[in-house]
């Protein structure tokens, strides 16, 4: 009997996993024993971190978009359809088209989405670089800015120990902003204030979600004249008066509010009944080692949808995808999973426009800040502009 593997979501997690699975299971595919299908709500694939560069006029955006079909191996059947329902008893996912996609194994890789509505006034008063449209609006505002104050705010999910999308992005963009304003010759006329909420994953009253980096940040910010403030948990924005209010009772005026907004899982996952995350955030209860959804033997998940304490970013997915592919291949061949995820995250942070900082951590060890370098920046930019597509195709 042919085994059906269904992948829901055509982002980084879904694409890498589809190709890695096809490679891993080529023997079974050749014998017509395995079928891999992907459904995605878009014909296109977006490289999300690219948006950050759009905000600072370092890319126009189209460089980071490709047709999904061109990134998938021909052994992966690709269909554009939006998942709306999952039936875990009868093992099928229903699409918006009405089609029921049955599966023996399903991989839920639908990512997360910006939920600005969760903070009153943020939609009207704030800007964010987590989407191309958002980044373009921010770029327009930066182009007009001649003097004033840019306020950086960060929001964390209410679910304990879960980070927002791309943990390091607020720091990256704050330093990029400093460099960008210097490049424009207007840094002296613009004040940058970086704020962090009281509770940020494992850290309280800090400037980053992990201890060692949180401690080293004040000296970095002092060095470039960025002001900073801990325990500023954004809870309201007045878009008319341009004032940001915190849960702690403080208020800060701004000219531009560059915000890391609240994130939640996609509607399909939130309505699937699989999550018990607080505040209807929808994170899937994930076994930290096998990457199965807890309580289900044939449902795997990875990437931004999980409730694990690791970054919601491509550098995480790159390590998770091999575990998921190996485990599903083992289940098909031997009847049990064989690999275990150790929480490894590897990335290069863009610390300003021309400095890249390699970083790595796992469940046991926090990120150890390392010096950033010009070479690091080249590797990061090289990854953005080309190596990413090879990684998505399962070539790297």
């Amino acid at each position, binding site marked *: 009997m042919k085994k059906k593997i269904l992948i829901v979501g055509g982002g980084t997690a879904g694409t890498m996993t589809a190709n890695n699975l096809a490679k891993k299971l*080529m023997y079974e595919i050749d014998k017509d024993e395995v079928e891999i299908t992907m459904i995605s709500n878009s014909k296109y694939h977006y490289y999300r971190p690219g948006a950050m560069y759009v905000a600072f006029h370092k890319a126009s955006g189209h460089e980071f978009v490709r047709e999904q079909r061109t990134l998938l191996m021909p052994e992966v059947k690709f269909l554009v359809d939006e998942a709306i329902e999952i039936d875990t008893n009868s093992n099928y996912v229903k699409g918006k088209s009405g089609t029921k996609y049955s599966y023996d194994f399903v991989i839920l890789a639908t990512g997360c989405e910006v939920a600005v509505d969760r903070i009153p006034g943020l939609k009207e008063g704030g800007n964010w670089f987590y989407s191309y449209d958002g980044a373009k609006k921010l770029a327009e505002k930066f182009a007009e800015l001649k003097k004033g104050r840019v306020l950086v705010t960060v929001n964390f999910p209410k679910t304990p120990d879960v980070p927002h999308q791309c943990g390091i992005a607020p720091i990256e963009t704050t330093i990029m902003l400093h460099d960008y304003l210097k490049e424009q010759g207007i840094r002296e006329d613009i004040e940058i204030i970086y704020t962090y909420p009281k509770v940020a994953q494992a850290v309280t009253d800090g400037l980053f979600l992990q201890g060692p980096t949180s401690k080293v940040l004040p000296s970095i910010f002092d060095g470039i004249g960025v002001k900073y403030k801990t325990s500023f948990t954004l809870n309201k924005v007045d878009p008319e008066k341009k004032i940001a209010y915190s849960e702690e009772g403080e208020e800060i005026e701004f000219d531009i509010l560059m915000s890391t907004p609240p994130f939640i899982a996609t509607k399909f996952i939130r309505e699937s009944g699989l999550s018990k995350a607080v505040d209807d955030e929808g994170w899937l209860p994930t076994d930290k080692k096998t990457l199965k959804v807890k309580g289900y033997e044939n449902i795997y998940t990875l990437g931004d949808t999980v409730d694990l304490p690791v970054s919601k970013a491509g550098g995480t997915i790159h390590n998770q995808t091999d575990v998921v592919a190996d485990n599903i291949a083992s289940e098909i061949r031997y009847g049990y999973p064989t690999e275990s995820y150790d929480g490894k995250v590897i990335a290069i942070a863009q610390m300003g426009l021309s400095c890249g900082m390699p970083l790595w951590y796992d469940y046991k060890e926090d990120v150890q800040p390392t010096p950033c370098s010009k070479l690091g920046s080249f590797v990061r930019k*090289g990854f953005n502009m080309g*190596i990413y597509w090879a990684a998505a195709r399962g070539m790297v």
Partner: protein
Amino acid sequence: MSEKVEVLKTKEMQELEEKFAMLVQTGRIDNIIDLLAVVSDNIEMTTAPMVDKMVGTIDNLATAGFITQNAVRYANREIKKNEVPSLFGLLKLLKDEDTRKGLAFVLHLTKGIGKQV
């Protein structure tokens, strides 16, 4: 009345010194320094647009490799699965949309080469 100053070295520093001493004694240290200088010069002289262009070229090669590798594997599988088609069978293959798309691609590819030779 000179005081004896003892410099305490860590085990790692001692090991490093021994390794470097070996390089100095054998004259190979000059080559290492030259190599580091070349690497450093290359980093200094590289600009962001150069990186963009280089990576673009690598990406094009990787894309071509991905398409070719997949197509060869697919063709191999199909050849093994089916008998060698007759002349009529070959025409039947042309009814398939993907085959026609691939064939059109090859013809455009030929035209693209023609434009450059």
